[in-house]
């Protein structure tokens, strides 16, 4: 290809990316007598969805991110939109359509924000879909309480091949994010240790802080920032400020 733009790499190789890839791979390469659903859960901001987007591209998975406003019907309508099929009229027909497409294409399905479907008591629709597709590999992603929420549906709960937990972002992850996202300045390792510590596992908070440090350094007119130069300035901890009058 005659492209002259610099190479882009948009996802940092964090531990959770590897965990997510391995989870879907386990469902895809399982023996035929085993169930094919894997659950990947962890707190908000730990990089599950970014890992899912990477995994979806790597395995050509269909990737659906649920929304809080979805009903069973809108779940199916959006799934069919993602599959590129014009939706039939009833939910049961839509399940057959989607099941057929998953079975024929052999491609896996990733359902993100699955806790919304659990809250709506619409978990069984995923089970229907799993059965209709003849056991298409599925990766269900949700927040920390998802496994316990799913316990309410025993038949669903015991169809799971594995439960995988997201890992908190550590210093290594923070350094990987630094090399991907911080281009204009250098940030010393001692300050990175503070960033990783205050983020309490959240990839999202690390990213916010790396950007904050970069902006501060540029405003200050320097291209290097370390713990001493950062001084007593605050990092973003996720806590909203309290007004002191």
């Amino acid at each position: 290809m005659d492209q002259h733009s610099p190479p882009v790499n948009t996802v940092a190789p964090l531990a959770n990316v590897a965990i997510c890839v391995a989870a879907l791979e386990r469902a895809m390469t399982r023996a035929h007598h085993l169930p094919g659903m894997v659950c990947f859960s962890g707190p908000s901001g730990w990089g599950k969805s970014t890992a899912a987007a990477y995994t979806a591209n790597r395995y050509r998975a269909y990737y659906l991110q649920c929304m809080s406003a979805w009903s069973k019907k809108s779940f199916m309508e959006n799934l069919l939109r993602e599959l590129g099929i014009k939706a039939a009229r009833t939910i049961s027909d839509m399940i057959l359509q989607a099941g057929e497409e998953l079975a024929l294409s052999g491609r896996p399905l990733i359902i993100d924000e699955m806790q919304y479907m659990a809250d709506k008591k619409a978990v069984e629709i995923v089970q229907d879909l799993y059965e209709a597709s003849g056991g298409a590999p599925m990766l269900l992603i949700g927040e920390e309480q998802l496994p316990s929420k799913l316990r309410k549906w025993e038949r669903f709960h015991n169809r799971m091949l594995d439960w995988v937990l997201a890992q908190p972002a550590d210093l290594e992850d923070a350094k990987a994010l630094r090399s991907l996202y911080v281009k204009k300045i250098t940030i010393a390792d001692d300050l990175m240790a503070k960033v990783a510590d205050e983020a309490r596992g959240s990839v999202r908070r690390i990213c916010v802080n790396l950007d904050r440090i970069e902006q501060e350094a540029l405003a200050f007119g320097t291209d290097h920032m370390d713990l001493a130069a950062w001084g007593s300035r605050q990092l973003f901890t996720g806590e909203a400020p309290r007004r002191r009058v």
Partner: protein
Amino acid sequence: MIKKTTVEKTREAWGPSLPDWVQLMAENCDQTSQASFATRIGYSPAVVNTVLGCKYKGDIGAVKQAVEGALMHATVQCPVYGDLEGHHCLEYQRRKFAATNPTRVRLFRACRDCTNNRTGRNV
């Protein structure tokens, strides 16, 4: 009478100017079928057939990108995905807007003013 292979027919149609990627495409069609190869690169069987017959009237550069992406793993630099195989790039460009996942929304926005966009769609 011996039936001619797709490769033979393609050689006759293109003559000495047969590009490598069309040759590869013809070989692949012999192994599978023109219809299944068309599905693989995201085009209709008619497009595959007319390209092989040197009669395609559309954007042949886009077909080339799709074939090279599928058969030679030729990638483009995607602002969302980084390295992205050519036929998948074209597939994503053609997609309508749908908020089914965040990547799809990002792609929709990125494709609109991307230098890789050949469809001119959604711009």
